[in-house]
Structures are given as C-alpha cells and as structure tokens.
C-alpha cells in the first residue's frame, strides 16, 4: 500500500485527502515531523503560505521536509503549496526552495479576480478545469523543470522529476486526474528505487 501524506498545518487538507483516497492509497494528515517516516510522497495543500511557513518553523518541519525531498520522495504542491516548494519567490525570501522555479504570489490580483477556466495540462488532458483563487503564477522554471500547463501565456503547472506544482486547485473539483498522475509518479519512483 502506498502511504501519502498531506501536510495538515492549515488549508484545504480534507479535499486533497478525498481526491487521493479515490486513487486507492493510504492518506495520512501530517501534523508532526515524525509522521513523515514511512511516507512515499507528500502533498502541500492550498491555504495561506505565510501561515504554513510559520507553523513549519514552529514545529521543526523545515529540516525534515528538506531531507524528505533530498531523499527523492515525490512532492505535489497546489497554490500555496507550490509557493512553499519554489526556489525563488518574487519580492520575498523563499520557503523550502526544493523546486527549480520562481513564483509570484497573488499574480492575478485579489479575490474578486479569482476565476475558473479550462486548461490543457500535458500528461493529464486537454479538458482540465482550472480553479484559480488568489493564485500565484510560475514566472520561470529552471532547465531541469518542465512546463506542463500555461494559461493566457503564464505558467500555471510544472514538473521537475519527482516534484509537481500547480497554481490552481484540482482538489476543489471532482476531476482527480492530477492526483492520479501524482500517485503514478510515486508508483514509478518506488519501482525505480
């Protein structure tokens, strides 16, 4: 059985858990660093990145999360989760800095500019429903990262080896293909190990 954690310090944890459970994996809500032991992959949910970062520091998650990523464990971040994973954030210090990309927070504007729109996502489909809430964009990606989706000329999803990030919220739709894609990444990673 594959064990996938969802970082449960704040945000839309339940929605991710439900989407993953649909892929028939064991889901753990991670509130303590020791819960990372035995996980095969980790999801950083949407929420407020500043809040999550403060709680990551407070509860000694920072080094264990870095180590978890360095061990080659797959990670998937949506919206605030993508911000936590990025190596660079426009106008502020980065958080975990595990994925080779630069993000810009609230890039589409405030809540009244939040929107839904159809998206093409490479490896997923041409009919993905993008839900963007005070969403960031990926301004640029490093040479090892691959852009897998753009909206209106802006990068909104990318993959770098075992890291997957998107600025929209697949967990707020009934379409679980993004989560299934992540579970496949974990399966392949385990076979390769």
């Amino acid at each position, binding site marked *: 059985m594959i064990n996938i954690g969802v970082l*449960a*310090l*704040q*945000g*839309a*944890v*339940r*929605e991710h858990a439900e989407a993953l459970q649909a892929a028939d994996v064991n889901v753990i809500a991670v*509130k303590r660093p020791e819960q990372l032991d035995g996980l095969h992959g980790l999801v950083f949910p*949407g*929420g*407020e990145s*500043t*809040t999550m970062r*403060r*709680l990551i520091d*407070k509860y000694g998650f920072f080094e264990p999360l870095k180590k978890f990523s360095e061990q080659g464990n797959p990670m998937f971040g949506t*919206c*605030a989760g993508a911000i936590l994973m990025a190596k660079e954030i426009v106008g502020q210090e980065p958080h975990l800095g595990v994925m080779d990309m630069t993000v810009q*927070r*609230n890039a589409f*504007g*405030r*809540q*009244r*500019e*939040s*929107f*839904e*729109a*159809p998206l093409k996502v490479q490896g997923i489909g041409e009919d993905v429903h993008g*839900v*963007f*809430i*005070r969403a960031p964009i990926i301004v640029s990606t490093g040479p090892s990262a691959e852009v897998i989706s753009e909206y209106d000329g802006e990068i909104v999803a990318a993959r770098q080896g075992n890291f997957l990030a998107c600025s929209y*919220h697949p967990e*707020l739709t009934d379409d679980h293909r993004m989560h299934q894609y992540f579970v496949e990444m974990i399966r392949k990673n385990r076979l390769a190990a």
Partner: protein
Amino acid sequence: MKQTGTDRVKRGMAEMQKGGVIMDVVNAEQAKIAEEAGAVAVMALERVPADIRAAGGVARMADPTIVEEVTNAVSIPVMAKARIGHIVEARVLEALGVDYIDESEVLTPADEVYHLNKRDYTVPFVCGARDLGEASRRIGEGASMIRTKGEPGTGNIVEAVRHMRMMQSQIKKVAGMSEDELMTEAKNLGAPYDVLLEIKRSGKLPVVNFAAGGVATPADAALMMQLGADGVFVGSGIFKSDNPEKFARAVVEATTHYEDYQLIADLSKGLGTAMKGIEISTLEKADRMQERGW
C-alpha cells in the same frame, strides 16, 4: 471562458482558510503583527467589537483609509465588515478590493428586514448564524462562508459554544432524516429546502463554518475546533490582551493543534491578562448583538 465570482471560487477561498485564525485589526501595525503571528486573514475595522460596545452609538463600515492601509500592509487576504442590508457599504468594500465581506451584526443593521442578496456580488461574503435555519437562509442568499455569531466583544465563549453545538446537532439530525421528512424540517427551521437537501446528502454544511463571538484565549480557540469549527475568528481578544504578539501566536498554534493539551498548556503560560470579559446575563437585550439579523 474565464469566469469570476462563481460559487466555486467564492466558497473555495474560504476552504483555503480552514484550520486558521482570522484576526480583527484596526491599523497597519496590528495587521503586520497578525500576519507575522500566522493569521490566515485579517478583518480591517475602525474599532474592535469590545470598543464598539463601549462607544455606543451607530457602528458603520470602516473608513476606507483604514481598509486601504491594512490592504497595503499585508499579503494575506483582507476582510471588512458592512452593515446588514447595506447595499452601498458592501459595494464600496467590493470596489476597494477587499477579499471577503462580513455582513455583520457587530455593526448597527441598516435594514431590519432584508439581508443582502450576496449572489449579486463578485466578492464573497461571510455571515453570522445562531442555528442551522439562520445559516441556511444566509447560504440561500449566497453567503460563501458561515460563522457562529456568539456574542461579540464580550470575551465570553458561552454563546459561540451554544451556537456551534446547536448547528452541529441540527446538521446531524438533518443528515439522519429521510427525504420525506425534509420539507417539514425546512418549514420548522425556516430554511430553504434545497440547502437542507444538500446538507442531508453530504452530511455537512455546503460552506466552511468558523467560530466567532467571544474567543478570548488559546483554549477557547481549541474548544471551538473540537466542537467542529473549521477555523476561528478572534475579534477583541488579541489586541485587548497584554501581549498581542505572543497571544496571537498562541491562538494560531492552539487552533492547529487543538487536541494537543500539553502544547496548549505550554503556550498558555505567561500570556498575561486576557480581556476582562462580560457575563452574558448582565447584558440588556438591546445590547445583545446576536439578536441583530434573523
């Protein structure tokens, strides 16, 4: 193809706040303290509820200068309060770009009969409720988030507990009903049938439900989470305490780890005096903010 102001983005915005604390602030300095402490959003106000209570008179939407000052100071979402039924205050706040509007009983109601038709707006709304009927009526009008009313500005948790317990027990009751009982329950609660049907099918409210109105300590915040709140609003509690920075951090941590009692014990140490608080039975009926709205 691009759609703004849909139910999904309005309700989804509140989903992202889950497990978090939303703090009342009256200026940029307080907003920064709140953000630094880990608040998921701030509520920009002219006065916190305890001071509104003390000042008396008519309480209105905050001066737009304060809303702008707070908006420019932080990167987390900014909420602001409009009077119940005040169409223009709500439109002004929407024009200012606030991320969420609280149609709030803390302010003096502008309309004693009608609440806002919240579906008309691109910006999402949070509304107070004392029971499932009231919550369902607000959702029927387009509220994207609910909070218990509690009794604001008292530092007394008893009313928030009453309202949260009431709502949770009514949700369980509706979830356990057969569909042929539902219309009678809708009549009894004064709730829109469609909203109740959705609650029956999913076993939960279709929107996020926070606790508000009387949270004064980290233990109060953790209590509300245990009773089923998705998160917590803290109004007067933080900036009326002796050490707001420490207090704010403690409330955030207690909300995340609401079942870790040793941790709550540790972070409750040396917090200084919490706000004094008011015994509810000493309040005149006219001073009970929860009676505003229906």
